């Protein structure tokens, strides 16, 4: 096994929703170059787990460690390395894709050499830069949010249902992007109801409410 303090360590966490236990005593570690696919039925706690891992929610018990330190202690170091995209895409309908991404980038606080227009062309939105996002289709809005993947320097990506309302081409583009990220030593946590085919890295699968990680061939 790799260094015990590398990457993201989820240490025996439990989570409840109302009076229902979603999962308990979940314990695993995600190292650079690894992919974790979180699966499970609707309502099995995938989003709750991802939000706990991002530090947006508190687990009932247990803790999440980043490089051996609690994420709330190393907060800004973890947050600089984290990219979380949830169900709600954080896209303002009144703003254009360019303006939306400008804001997202300055919030994340990382300066990259990749230009925003470059990222938009990679997600196939060239020619839509100046159109308010409210006039774009659901899939195009999703693409605007996903363009952040090309702008960020974060090493740990936590993506909740990134494939929602994307077409086949966009899914292929996204998988290409994931493969590159993993090959560069990034980490990826992803939930999806669609099959994910990545040709890179060490892949693990967690099927909630089971707490055992399966390693995929």
């Amino acid at each position: 096994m790799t260094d015990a303090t590398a990457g993201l360590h989820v240490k025996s966490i439990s989570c409840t929703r109302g009076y229902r236990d979603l999962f308990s005593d979940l314990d695993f570690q995600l190292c650079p170059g690894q992919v974790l696919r979180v699966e499970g039925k609707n309502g099995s706690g995938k989003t709750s787990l991802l939000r706990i891992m991002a530090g947006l929610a508190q687990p009932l018990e247990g803790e999440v460690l980043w490089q051996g330190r609690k994420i709330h202690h190393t907060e800004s170091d973890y947050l600089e390395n984290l990219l979380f995209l949830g169900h709600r895409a954080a896209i303002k309908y009144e703003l254009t894709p360019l303006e939306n991404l400008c804001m997202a980038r300055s919030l994340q606080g990382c300066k990259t050499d990749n230009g925003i227009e470059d990222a938009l062309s990679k997600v196939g939105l060239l020619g839509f830069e100046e159109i308010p996002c409210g006039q774009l289709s659901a899939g195009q809005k999703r693409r605007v949010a996903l363009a952040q993947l090309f702008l960020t320097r974060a090493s740990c990506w936590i993506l909740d249902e990134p494939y929602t309302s994307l077409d086949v081409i966009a899914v292929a583009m996204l998988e290409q992007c994931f493969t590159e990220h993993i090959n560069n030593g990034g980490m990826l946590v992803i939930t999806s109801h669609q099959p994910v085919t990545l040709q890179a890295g060490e892949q693990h699968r967690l099927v909630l409410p089971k707490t055992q990680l399966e390693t995929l061939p």
Partner: protein
Amino acid sequence: MSISGRSPSSFAAFISLIKRDLMLSYRHRNELLNPLLFFVIVVTLFPLGVSPEKTLLQTMAPGVIWVAALLAAMLSLDTLFKSDYEDGTLEQMMLSPHSNALLVLAKIISHWLVTGVPIILLAPLLGLFMFMPAGGISTLMLTLLLGTPILSLVGAIGMALTLGLNRGGMLLSLLVLPLYIPVLIFSANAVDTSMAGLEIKGQIYFLSALLVLSITLAPLAAATALKISVE
């Protein structure tokens, strides 16, 4: 990861958040008009409802204008975090490596620029409606200049706390109104006193102290409350 590299970009995020919020308000100009219209209508209805008599209106003017400004400020609070909460921008703000309090302060400042400043600018006109003397009007503007930021700052805490609730409106007024009352008392009293030709230093000092206190503490409190609301 370098701490030295972080502070300038924090400031850049602060500025770009203010810019973005101003741009959003500009594209939603109609929503901004509501609290302002409310402010103007309430004050203009008083002479019609009570009496157009000059001395009576003059004595009522500071209180009426300030109460209307306070209620207009409360009406406008609704737009402060709501849309960011609904579309997930707030989550991204909480996950930003920048200080959350700083980002919240940016949001409050831009909110004040589009709701508080127009109230200050409209106040002289309403003062004239109420037969206020020039000295009274300038004190009115001064108290509004010191007071409306306090309303936005304190209101932000209440708004942040009630964000996750379905019907937070009622609770918001209950939480925020008691905290608004000192501002109302000192401001209306300052305008009254200055119209009587007396010294108003005391009230102004008090308002300034309240402003400093709320600038330092309210963003911290609101950021913590937002964290809880987002969860």
